[in-house]
Each structure stands twice: as structure tokens, then as C-alpha cells.
């Protein structure tokens, strides 16, 4: 199955991935609602580029007590009706890319919007080795 990968050396920090994700999945332009976290900032030691994306580790699927997050053919889906807002998935996600919303959560559904917008191919979908 395929998952999203990030190549920091190619990232220019434009945040178009965040905008594409939030537009596609939340119907607004809001980088904080993106289901990935790409940062490109200067600290005292220079430029720091960081990228956290869903690598389909499925820890959220395993942890959800009510099976509101399911995996089917390498793709996650979220069943809002079942969700009890316990936030266990948000806390357990090793990459911290599950968006905690007022009601429910947002997981990467492999829509590919971020990679489709990435101007430098810093974000790509590729086969996951298990």
C-alpha cells in the first residue's frame, strides 16, 4: 500500500500543502486544520525544516475504542457517527497529524491534494514497506 512521504531537502516552505489539505477536507483555507505538519522556520541554528505526515502506521485504527477509524485497501476513513470525541487517536498518533476538531477528528484520507499541489515534489506518495 502507498503512503505519503516527505523529503525535507526539497521543501521550500510554501505551505501550499497545508492549504490544499484544509480546502479539500475542511472546506476552508486554514493551515492549522491540515492533516499533515510541514514546517520551515529559522531558529538560532539556522533553517529547520520538519515534516510529519500519515505513514499509515494504523495505531489510530488499533486504538479507537469504537472503530470510528477504519482502514480499507490502504486508505483510512473516519465514521463521525460512531466517534465519542475521546481523542485517544489524537494523542496516540506518533506523527501528530490527526486534527482535533470541535466535534470529531480529521485523519489523512490519502486524497493526494497536498502532493498534487507541492511545487517541488517534496511530498510524494510511495509504496510503504512493511
Amino acid at each position, binding site marked *: 500500500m502507498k503512503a505519503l512521504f516527505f523529503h525535507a531537502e526539497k521543501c521550500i516552505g*510554501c505551505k501550499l500543502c497545508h492549504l490544499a489539505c*484544509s480546502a479539500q477536507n475542511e472546506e476552508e483555507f486554514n493551515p492549522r486544520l491540515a492533516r499533515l505538519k510541514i514546517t*520551515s522556520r529559522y531558529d538560532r541554528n539556522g533553517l529547520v525544516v520538519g515534516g510529519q505526515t500519515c505513514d499509515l502506521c494504523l495505531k489510530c485504527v488499533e486504538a479507537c475504542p469504537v472503530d470510528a477509524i477504519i482502514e480499507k485497501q490502504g486508505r483510512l476513513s473516519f465514521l463521525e457517527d460512531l466517534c465519542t470525541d475521546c481523542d485517544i487517536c489524537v494523542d496516540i498518533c506518533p506523527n501528530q497529524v490527526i486534527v482535533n476538531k470541535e466535534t470529531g477528528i480529521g485523519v489523512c484520507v490519502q486524497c493526494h491534494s497536498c502532493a498534487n*499541489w507541492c511545487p517541488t515534489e517534496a511530498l510524494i506518495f510511495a509504496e510503504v514497506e512493511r
Partner: protein
Amino acid sequence: MTYTGKILRVNLSTGKAQPEPLNEKWARDYLGGKGLSIKYLYEELEPGIDPLSEANKLILMTGPTTGTIVPNSGKLAVAAKSPATGTILDCSIGGYFAPELKYAGYDAVIIEGKAKTPVYLYIEDEKVELRSAGDLWGKGAHETEHIIAETLGDVITMVIGQAGENLLPMACISSELYRQAGRGGIGAVMGSKNLKAIAVRGTGGIKIPNIRKFSAALNKIKREDTMTDDNMWTYSDGTPMLVDLCHDSGILPTRNFQEGTFEDYKKINSDAVKGVLKAKKACFACPLGCSNYVEKGDTRVEGPEYETLALCGSNCAIGDIEAIIEFNRLCDDYCLDTISAGNSVAFAMELTEKGIYDFGIHFGEVDKYLEMPGLIARKEGVGAELAAGVRAMAEKYGGMDFAMQVKGLEMPGYEPRGSWAMGLAYGTADRGACHMRAWPTAVEAFGDIDPYTSEGKAKLVIGMQDDNSVKFSAIFCDFWALSTERMAEILSLLLEREVTATELTTIGERTYNLARLFNEREGFNRKDDYLPERIFSEKLPTGTTAGKLLPREEYEKMLTDYYQLRGWDENGIITEAKKKELHL
């Protein structure tokens, strides 16, 4: 609609901060960014005020594209009356500040008055605070941003360095260490208000109808119109590519504009920058990534841009890329505009070499050159003289004929004797010698249009000024060469009404005329629209421009044509008919 409809007005004298509705009629007439900030300043500033008094206002203005997925929409207009020129002043700063302000819920911030003691402004959505900046005052821009980030976390900041605190007419505002609202002393306006920094965190978003369809359409535009061969020089090289082009065209300012070619240009060109390149970097929502983040030893900088390579390189006869990078870093940290600082240093070098006044620095002297940013920013020794800018230096010590400035603003890196329309663009730019209002060099020195004729130049420059005015109001970055038709297509989708290219051209023209009207009210007219005598009477000595100058009579002819086409009278005053036509 992508306006928030809300402006934040902060009065530093009273400490009060209050939101107010955006003036919708003005937003329709001027869009945002450059145009709308000038409109607010024109309406709210009393004529004749001291730019460094509490009567001046500082405006941060976003535009209708800000915060959306529209490519190259990450810019913010920062405007005030200029301490360097006394004209209107709007700067454009990239990075991430503009979208963050929009996400906090504001189209703009208007800052008035003066704080009694140093403060910084902290905006987190509806929460607005003035915090003490006592510990930050006296610190460089870099340290200031690091401390604020360590205190407040993931905020975006705009700050001033020592240059702004010391009210220098070449003080800039800096954001994320290496992005600047550079020109005209905008940093001194912050300094005069005892405002060290502005930090913002915005957690909201922007909603538009059919957002998925809109995004898909914009992704296609990004691929087919933004990331094209015409624009991708930004990613492959960035502005340093202009060093070779300008040298080859004989318009690379060298030794205070005494020459148009530089013998060591290969040591400071794009290849030299690539030799120390660490990473490419973009502003928010920009797929072009023009910035070059370079590292050399402990010296790190995002840059140097062409203007720095030219004015702080060849113009000072510094053919040493490491020295220019260090000079650039120092200027960024002190918050000095590199165009003006480079000009001041070069002018001091020429005055010294000509024996007019001994500033103790000659062309090409790297060690002394590297001392200059600190001396200037702190107003120490000769630095105190250089800090005043080349016009003030010439008034005191002489050399006005080769003080390279217009209206008190130092000249950018394109020699007008090899690009006559560029001369007209400098003369008629609203904030003094500026290359961002129109850049006809692209089609003259690097294109098919004869650089050495006055024919057709007025029309060329006016078209570019009006196009750029609306572009910087919408707000787009200069480096996406997009048509007004394309702009109209995008704005129609965002504003949910039909916007036409003709309407946008009119907004550009209206904006440029309003800027002129502001300057007119301050006493500016034809007499102020001239270039330094060197351009009119000294022939360039080398390269493809050898023997060239811009004859004064040809400049007069361009200027007269320009006023006529603009609908201004012979003295450069806007006619009543033109005002009526543009609803000014």
C-alpha cells in the same frame, strides 16, 4: 468574499486597541494592499506632519487573495508617510505575516500615536495586548525575533533593529530574520512610536463557495501560468541572475554609479551565490521559491538578493561574496535597507577618493566596509553621517551631482544611462528612486526595446506603474508575471462578482494617482521628478554602455510626455478632469 471586513486600530498613546469595520467602498475602489493603505493614509493623515511624530500612522494591509491558495499571494503592504522622502511610502513584505494576520481575523492593522516606553504588540485572534519591550530595546532584529518566539511560541513577527530605534531614514522592518519591508525608513516609523515588534497568531480560516473547485482551478493556473519558464528563474537562480545580465548590458552600478560594468562581477554573480547555497525558500503560498538560503561558516543569510549584490557589491567595488553575505547579515540584523546602506557607503567612498571629505573608506576596502553597518545603525563616528542618507550627506559635504537618489531615496541597481525608461520610472516613482513601481529595464536592457530613445517610454512606464499598483493591491508578488486578465479571473472567483481587467487597470491608475495626490499635498511637483546630474552629463566609460548618458533634454521630453499621458499639467499636477475621471 475573502475580506474579514474587520480592521484593528491600535492607539499606542492611549493603549487602546479596537476592531472596526473595513470601509467597503474603499475596498472596492482600491482592493487592498498598496491602494487601500494609501487611501487610509490620504484620508487620515494631516498634510505636513513630521513622519517621525506621533501624528504619523503605520498601516499593515492584506488583500483579497491573502491567506488563500492563490499562488504568490503571501505579501503584506506596510505603509506610512516616509521619513526618508516626506512622500507616501508603501513597502511590500513577504514571508508568513500577512496570512497569519488574516487568520487572526483582520484585513489590516492601523497603528497610531506613540507609546511612552518601548512596547510590542501581540495579536492572538480577538486578544490584543501591548507588552513591555524594555528588555528587547537595543537588541538586533534576529535576537528580538528569537526571544519573542521563545516567549510566545509559534507566532509570526515583524520587528525593528537598532536602525529603527535610532530613527534612521534607511531603517527597515524585518520578519522571519530575512524578509524586509525595506525602503523609505518604514522601520524608523515603528521606532518613533516606541514599537519594537508586532507578533501575531491567527487560528481562523477563510471560507469561499465551491472551495474544492476553486482549488482545482488554481492548481491548473499554478502549473500552466505560474510555474512556467518565464517565472522559474526564481527557483533556478533567484534575483542574483541579474548580476550577469546587468554587467553584460552595462547597467550594473559600480563605484557609486561611475561605471556600468564590474571587473569582478563573476565573483558576486548567481554562480557565486550557488557556491554557498544551502536551501531554496519561499514565502507563504508561493510555488516559485526565489530565496536562496546560504551558509558560509557561521554566517547565515537568506540572500543576498541582486540589489544587495549590486549596491553593496559592485557599487562599493567589493568583489568578495563572503564579505557581501556578512554585510547583508549585519544589515538584516540592524534592520538597514541594503539599497540605501550600499549607496551611502559607496557615496562616502567616492567623496573620500575625490578628496571632498575624508570618511576614511575607499572603494574595495573590505575590512572598513564590514564595520559600516554597525557604525551606521548605532550612529557612531562616520556612521552618523552615512546614516542620514546620500542626499543629506551631499547637503553637508558636497557632491550632490553624484548623490544617487531621487526625492531623498537612494537608487536601486539599474543604471538609467543604459535604460532610459528606468530613469523615467525612478523620477516618477511615488516613493523616490524605486525599481518596484515600474521595471522597464526588463524590456529595454534585456529585451527588444531600444534603451536609448525617449520615444514611447512614457506610455511604457505608465502601463507598468498602473499594472504593478493593482498587483500590489490585490496582493500578488512581483515575480509572478501575471496578466490583469488572469488577475481578474482569480478575483472574480474570490470576490463573487465579475471583476474585469479594465476595472483592475482603472484601480491601478487610481492608486497611482492617489499616491501622487498625497505627494502633491506635501508640496511635490515637477521639480522633484529629476535624476542626479551624473545621469544627465557624465558618460559611462565601459562595456556596452560606453559613451552613453541620458541627455537632459531627452529626459525632459519623456517627463512632459508622461505628464500629458497621465492627465497631469506641465508641472506634474493632476488636472481636475483626471481627478473627476478617477473619482479622486
